[in-house]
């Protein structure tokens, strides 16, 4: 069962946003849930940090506040591995689902499920960014510090974003999710400028490592619906986990994807094996006692994250490259944070990745 925000049992609202017109509909939705008006995040941090398991606690406490920084930010890549030049639209942080490998568990201290409600500022900034037609900003996504769709349907933000992107032709919006919260998307004037994207994994990994997420079949069925509503699609195999029999399982997922949707509507497919900051290991061991994912053959990467031993990554990627070539030869597939050796040995190319993806967006979504 997908967990969106049904489990929220406490609300905190920043004093200086309580009168925003974006807030009241949210409070109406959570009628009956205890709500505290606070002067800044400290009480929320305290409440979360004092819990026995702050990460689980944070998934049940929603904090409505204002984003005081930039809404559009460059995705933090590293020099050592090829980065895709993505832009993040910072709508909120953390998540109500609970994946063992989720980097957000170790990223925020403590983690806080916060939703930014200063949408007027968000759209002002977005207008500026889109109107500037900056050639470096062609792909923007909300699913980097959170899941794009857990905030639906009560926030209505994604719907507004879809329509805003539909009124321009310079960039695409990518909404990436493990939920099936697609209700209402069929009513929107998206103009193919929003890519509906799903993170996918093998049924084994979804069942054992992705608590409260939608099953693979449900994600693919949702993708098929979005395709029928005219949306371009994307799929992210990230993180791929190496386990006995994983190659056949991942190849099968590729086959299943293209049993549901047609390759020409897929803007891109990304591949990335599990990598983690060393601090995440202890968190996974404590919070997911039965998880085996940290017991693979990992080595410290050049970005100081632990990564699977390179020949193992390449072997899995080669199997995926062959499957993708068979089922979707024209679809752009790319690696998230891999070096040129991995690219060369798996896809026989070392591309200008941002240009490759921009080109895909032009082809599939019609941006100019």
């Amino acid at each position: 069962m997908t967990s969106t925000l049904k489990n929220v049992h406490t609300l905190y609202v920043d004093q200086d946003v309580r009168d925003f017109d974006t807030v009241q509909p949210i409070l109406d939705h959570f009628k009956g849930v205890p709500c505290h008006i606070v002067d800044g995040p400290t009480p929320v941090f305290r409440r979360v940090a004092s819990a026995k398991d702050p990460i689980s606690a944070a998934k049940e406490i929603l904090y409505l506040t204002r984003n005081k920084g930039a809404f559009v930010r460059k995705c933090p890549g590293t020099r050592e591995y090829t980065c895709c030049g993505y832009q993040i639209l910072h709508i909120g942080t953390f998540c109500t689902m609970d994946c063992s490998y989720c980097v957000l568990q170790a990223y925020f201290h403590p983690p806080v499920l916060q939703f930014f409600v200063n949408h007027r500022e968000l759209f002002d900034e977005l207008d500026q960014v889109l109107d500037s037609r900056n050639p470096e900003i062609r792909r923007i996504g909300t699913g980097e510090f959170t899941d794009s769709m857990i905030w639906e349907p009560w926030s209505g933000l994604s719907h507004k974003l879809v329509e805003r992107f539909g009124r321009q032709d310079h960039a695409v919006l990518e909404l990436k999710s493990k939920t099936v919260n697609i209700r209402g998307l069929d009513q929107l004037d998206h103009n193919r400028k929003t890519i509906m994207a799903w993170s996918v994994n093998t049924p084994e990994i979804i069942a054992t490592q992705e608590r409260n997420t939608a099953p693979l079949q449900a994600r693919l069925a949702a993708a098929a619906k979005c395709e029928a509503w005219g949306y371009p699609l994307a799929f992210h195999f990230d993180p791929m986990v190496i386990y006995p029999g994983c190659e056949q399982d991942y190849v099968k997922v590729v086959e299943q994807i293209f049993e549901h949707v047609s390759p020409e509507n897929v803007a891109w497919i990304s591949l990335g094996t599990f990598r983690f900051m060393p601090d995440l290991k202890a968190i996974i061991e404590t919070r997911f006692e039965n998880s085996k994912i940290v017991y693979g053959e990992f080595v410290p990467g050049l970005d100081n994250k632990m990564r699977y031993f390179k020949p193992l990554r390449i072997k899995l990627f080669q199997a995926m490259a062959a499957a993708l070539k068979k089922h979707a030869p024209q679809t752009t597939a790319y690696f998230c944070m891999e070096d040129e050796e991995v690219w060369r040995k798996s896809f026989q190319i070392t591309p200008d990745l941002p240009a490759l993806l921009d080109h895909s967006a032009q082809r599939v979504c019609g941006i100019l």
Partner: protein
Amino acid sequence: MHTPFEIYWISLDSIDSRDLDFQVSSEKDDSALKRSVESLGLINPPLVQEKGGGMHRIISGFRRVAVCRSLDMRRIQAMIVDPLTPHQECAMLAVAENAGQRELGLLEMSRALALIGPGIPWQDRVSMIMDALFLDEAPNQRYMEQVESLCSMAPEIQAGVEDATIAFPVALKLQAMAPGEALAFAEVFRRLGLSLGKQREILTLVKEIAARDDLSCKDVLESAEISAFLEDKDRDLNLKSREVREFLKQRRFPHITKAQEAFETEVQGLNLPKGVRLEPPAHFEGQVYELKFSFKNVNDLIKNHNVIIEVAEKPGLRKILDR
């Protein structure tokens, strides 16, 4: 607190040496004490308390009583504490007597702490601990609680900590495990006598192999290979320890160790000039290799000037670099 006691001659048969309630000291080689009692007599009488039926329990002086028995003495002088003295007061006396004589070992400290106010809230207990152990400052609560837990661990783990074959931080980790698992580790550690770092390394490797392969740690530690290393009489401890660790690393990281071995074999096949080393990228992750050779002075360097060309022309080099 001022506990009254008087010195009397009592028969050794009236002392119940099996009553270990107040024992703090660990068993040690008593030959020096024995020699002293033989030549000078028992200078410092043990502290005992009447326990009914004409018998006495020892509060302090377990080793002294044992030595006197081994010397076939019939009667000794003892300081006899009032039988109405409460148990906690006797415990404080036992600890203070021991702590006043010598620096307590870790296990002795553990027994001492277990005697002082068990179950009493820390804030009330800390002053009792300071008094009994003659401390000037309040000790760290968490550390004291960890030390106290030692004497309730399995005897094999206690013995390992006592003979320094099991490091205390490792003992704490073993305590958190199921008894069978902890004992399997204790057995291996006691047989190998490893440093703290190596104990930790083995602990992690075994736990991760077990978790990955759905085995118990005991299964991993009692595998035929590890048993063979441990049983081999021709290997010294250092060699056994190295082999056990290498075996575990290989089992935990099979592809990585295989790649390392293959690289080493291929580099050997290159027949590099003496003193020249070729090193792979760290963990085979990056793409930069290192060629290393040493020289003492400029002349030496000039003599080696064509090392790079010589290595670059080695027929097997390309295969290594094109992995």
